């Protein structure tokens, strides 16, 4: 029986749970002996003219070796936006020049012997800023009265498409429109950002940093510093979570290389949590307008979405999120007409990047709310409206009006499974009883169906490299271009190699994140790793066995066709001659037994599913509590159910958190209100029920594993289900819509307004 599909316990955990992982800040390395500590002095003002930065007092402080300001890095060209659609004037200077554009913008850098000295000295840097009005919302940005980049002449960072034609909904019996907020959230990886850099005598720099893709980060850093990439060696040690925010290099990482050269000593930097909450990329941040139109019998005829993406102060990957939202606008539905357009706008806030799902959760949240709004408008059960409009089962590629080509889908089956597992009819009956009795705790039932895109080519290609080497002692090493940071690649990749070679999982070491050893790699993001990196490991193992067969044939002087794989013995056996054969280890003793391969995915894959959330809302206080989350997530063939369930659980937690709790807030002057974990309502286990997982697996033809991505699906499906459930719980009181997060105050106020006969939306 194949090891694939079994619940192999994570091989990385004994170390992580005992000695602990080695994160960048934990590194003990000769090359970092005597490292100086980097402290960034950040703007406390969101928007203003930077009049002066006086470092004289800081220079005199104990332990201070150097203090640099923008003048000192005149040799550094500004960091390009890296995205062709962004006006060139919107690039980011290494240190704020002339202006500061968000609370957290870097105005000076302090190098000290000890870390604590850096915080002391940073307080002595006196920064004189003449405040300007802050652009905090996308509406402010669109108004364009205050510009972040005067030279650009606009706050628009990118525009995608045109508004829908005026007659787009003509002929529809019912048209519902809603503006909604897909709020800005903070990714909050447990490991905050950290980096270290040391120059060697050979003129090369080694950079260690916590990141989701060493190779991409290396390329960016070399480019920003104007260096030959061959002179950069980048290592990502153990990484404690990323959720998208550790995709690509951060300026701070590149800075460590420059600082180490300038100071002539290695340097290291680790940010604290408050710095992380303002300095690291945020996620989501879309203002959406949806319109949905159709007939009173429940048939939807047209759907449109307009996206205003908050880009933050400087363009990062967040500004392309509207394109993913637009691509997935048609979702699981057979809407005949779909229109989507968007733009990204500069605001005086932290830059937006990718966050678990990156553009797809925003698409799903919008359409799933739209379906519920339409259902409420025509007085039909939301499950029924979905049934009527889902794309019927398909196994041949299906192209949507928003331009995506789905590989395979069983959306109705997923929905029916979820409804059945949840006991939908009984839930509706219980809801009716509570409404009848006017109880304080009302029941809300929320649905979502979703399809998302994983392994998408976002410009870095859809290929992944793998190297597999068997050693003479019977162990093996896998080198992968993916970049695990919690997912369990060491376990899954070892399973894939073991499945083909018979080498036991515990004898296989999986290495990643070292650009000298693994020059090519796409990292871990966009739920790509198994379907591309895992497929590459599988392919490497297949190729290695083929190579071994040739060698064994020569060594045993038999025809290769007479050899068969002996999985139990991790070797090759001569068919029909018991005892005759050779192990892979023996072959490796003769000459290195190693293959390097590259798997090229023909296309992305489209995992799908359906979620049912049950919440209780205390209608007197407005507080919503999640009682149940029933989830069908179809990610094709599952290599290790334990790992897949872990990804689903984590995804649900973050998805639920967006619906109920989390939001990064700024005041009107652009001051962050959520820059500690006392203020940012990070979800914890106490707010979450035990999740009810329903299995469904429709293999994809796109890769030999049949696997689709599972890293982000949980987030994508759960947010709208929970959001819809909260609103459903108070719908009988006249509430039509409440923006996320559905805080007690917002829910209570929506009820008050509805009761007073006003519209709450």
């Amino acid at each position, binding site marked *: 029986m194949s090891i694939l599909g079994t619940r192999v316990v994570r091989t990385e955990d004994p170390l992580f749970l005992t000695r602990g992982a080695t994160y960048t800040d934990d590194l003990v390395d000769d090359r970092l002996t005597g490292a100086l500590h980097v402290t960034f002095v950040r703007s406390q003002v969101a928007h203003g003219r930077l009049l002066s930065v006086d470092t004289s007092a800081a220079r005199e402080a104990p332990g201070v070796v150097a203090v640099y300001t923008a003048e000192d890095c005149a040799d550094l060209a500004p960091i390009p936006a890296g995205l062709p659609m962004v006006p060139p004037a919107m690039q980011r200077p290494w240190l704020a020049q002339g202006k500061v554009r968000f609370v957290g913008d870097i105005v000076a850098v302090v190098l000290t012997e000890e870390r604590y000295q850096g915080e002391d000295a940073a307080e002595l840097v006196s920064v004189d800023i003449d405040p300007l009005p802050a652009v905090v919302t996308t509406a402010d940005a669109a108004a364009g009265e205050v510009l972040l980049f005067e030279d650009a002449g606009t706050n628009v960072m990118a525009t995608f498409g045109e508004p829908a034609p005026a007659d787009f909904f003509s002929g529809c019996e019912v048209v519902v429109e809603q503006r909604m907020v897909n709020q800005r959230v903070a990714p909050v990886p447990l490991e905050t950002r950290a980096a270290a850099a040391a120059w060697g005598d050979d003129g090369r720099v080694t950079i260690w940093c916590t990141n989701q893709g060493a190779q991409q980060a290396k390329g960016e850093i070399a480019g920003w510093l104007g260096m030959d990439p061959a002179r950069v060696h980048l290592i990502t040690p153990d990484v404690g979570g990323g959720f998208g925010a550790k995709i690509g290099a951060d300026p701070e990482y590149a800075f460590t290389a420059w600082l180490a050269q300038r100071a002539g000593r290695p340097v290291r930097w680790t940010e604290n949590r408050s710095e992380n909450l303002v300095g690291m990329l945020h996620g989501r941040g879309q203002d959406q307008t949806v319109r949905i139109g159709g007939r009173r019998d429940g048939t939807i005829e047209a759907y449109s979405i307009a996206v205003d993406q908050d880009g933050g102060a400087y363009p990062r990957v967040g500004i392309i999120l509207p394109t993913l939202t637009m691509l997935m606008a048609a979702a699981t539905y057979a809407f005949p007409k779909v229109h989507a357009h968007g733009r990204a706008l500069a605001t005086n806030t932290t830059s937006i990047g990718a966050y678990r799902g990156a553009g797809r959760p925003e698409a799903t949240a919008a359409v799933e709310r739209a379906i519920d709004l339409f259902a409420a408008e025509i007085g039909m059960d939301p499950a029924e409206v979905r049934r009527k409009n889902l794309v019927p089962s398909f196994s041949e590629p299906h192209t949507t009006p928003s331009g995506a080509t789905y590989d395979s889908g069983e959306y109705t089956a997923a929905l029916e499974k979820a409804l059945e597992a949840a006991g939908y009819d009984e839930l509706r009956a219980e809801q009716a009883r509570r409404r009848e009795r006017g109880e304080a705790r009302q029941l809300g039932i929320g649905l979502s169906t979703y399809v998302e895109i994983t392994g998408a080519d976002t410009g870095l290609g859809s290929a992944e490299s793998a190297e597999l080497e068997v050693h003479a002692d019977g162990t093996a090493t896998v080198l992968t271009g993916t970049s695990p940071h919690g997912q369990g690649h060491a376990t899954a990749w070892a399973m894939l190699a073991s499945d083909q070679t018979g080498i036991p999982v515990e004898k296989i070491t999986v290495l990643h994140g070292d650009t000298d050893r693994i020059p090519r790699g796409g990292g871990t993001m966009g739920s790509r790793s198994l379907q591309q990196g895992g497929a590459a490991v599988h392919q490497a193992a297949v190729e290695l066995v083929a190579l071994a067969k040739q060698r064994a044939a020569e060594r045993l002087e038999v025809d290769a066709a007479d050899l068969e794989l002996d999985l139990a013995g991790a070797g090759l056996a001569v068919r029909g001659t018991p005892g005759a054969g050779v192990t892979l280890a023996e072959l490796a003793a003769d000459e290195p037994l190693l293959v390097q391969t590259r798997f090229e995915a023909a296309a992305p894959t489209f995992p799908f599913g359906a979620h049912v959330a049950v919440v209780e809302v205390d209608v007197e206080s407005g507080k919503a509590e999640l009682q149940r989350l029933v989830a069908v997530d179809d990610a094709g063939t599952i290599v290790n159910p334990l790992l897949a369930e872990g990804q689903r659980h984590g995804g649900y937690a973050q998805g639920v958190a967006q619906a109920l709790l989390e939001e990064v807030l700024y005041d009107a002057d652009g001051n962050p209100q959520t820059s500690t974990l006392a*203020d940012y309502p990070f979800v914890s286990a*106490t707010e979450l029920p035990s999740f009810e997982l329903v299995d469904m697996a429709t293999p994809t033809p796109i890769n030999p594993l049949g696997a689709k991505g599972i890293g982000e699906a949980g987030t994508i499906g759960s947010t709208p289900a929970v959001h819809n459930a909260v609103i459903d719980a108070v719908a009988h009181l006249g509430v039509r819509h409440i923006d996320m997060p559905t805080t007690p105050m917002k829910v209570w106020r929506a009820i008050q307004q509805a009761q007073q006969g006003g519209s709450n939306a």
Partner: protein
Amino acid sequence: MIPGAFEYVRPGTVEEAVAALVEHGDDAKLIAGGHSLLPLMKLRLAMPAVLVDISRIPDLSYVRVEGDEVAIGAGTRHFELEKDDVARAEVPILPYAASQVGDPQVRHRGTLGGTVAHSDPASDLPTALLALGGSVVVQGPGGRRSIPMTEFWLGFYETALAEDEVVVEVRVPRTGSAGWAYEKFTRRANDWPIVAVAAVEGRVALANMAGAVVRATATEEALARGASIAEAAGLADEGTSPSSDMHADPEYRRHLARLLTRRALEKASGAGAAAA
């Protein structure tokens, strides 16, 4: 998130602690569990030059019955109070309120004296103590004095405690099986209250409805003259001055105060001690 530099002294007795406060005056700060002070220091919102660590002074952690009162040592950790059998039998609202503070780490570090002295308007135990009544016993250079609970909390981070005084004990009346309730409203289980209400024997105290924890006087007066729970609870926010933050604006806080007071009074009158 690294505090500014400070000196550190660890007195062995309350007298020595008082002496250290006298010696260093303004520059000194007591530290007990550190779970209010250290976060402020890490954010550099507090930068005391001298920390006087009283957490290892012996015999400051106890719960005992003394006549009609229960005396609780200032060094008692929230967790110890939560689990204490005497407290559970004699003043059950206190161990229950202690169990609602933060998360297990906080409850194992934070002390009663610390939360009382800190005077955060959102703190759980002071709210329950204010509803109980009784007194805070403090010790200064001139010896001990007792401050009535109703006169102790003056405002945000402001108490009747003098700069050179240490809270050594809290004394509350034994309430035994009298009805009580503590209603804490949060978004997450381990959060500070957005609003909380403590009710015991017709006395009602509110968390986070003013600069300090306060009594709902109008509600208490209404109850005293025989008003219904609904009517009395409707007055709970009278005279309060709730603040605005991302969780609640004043209007919503006032609503919560009235709602939670109604629920607390219903619980206290109905189920009595069973509410625990």
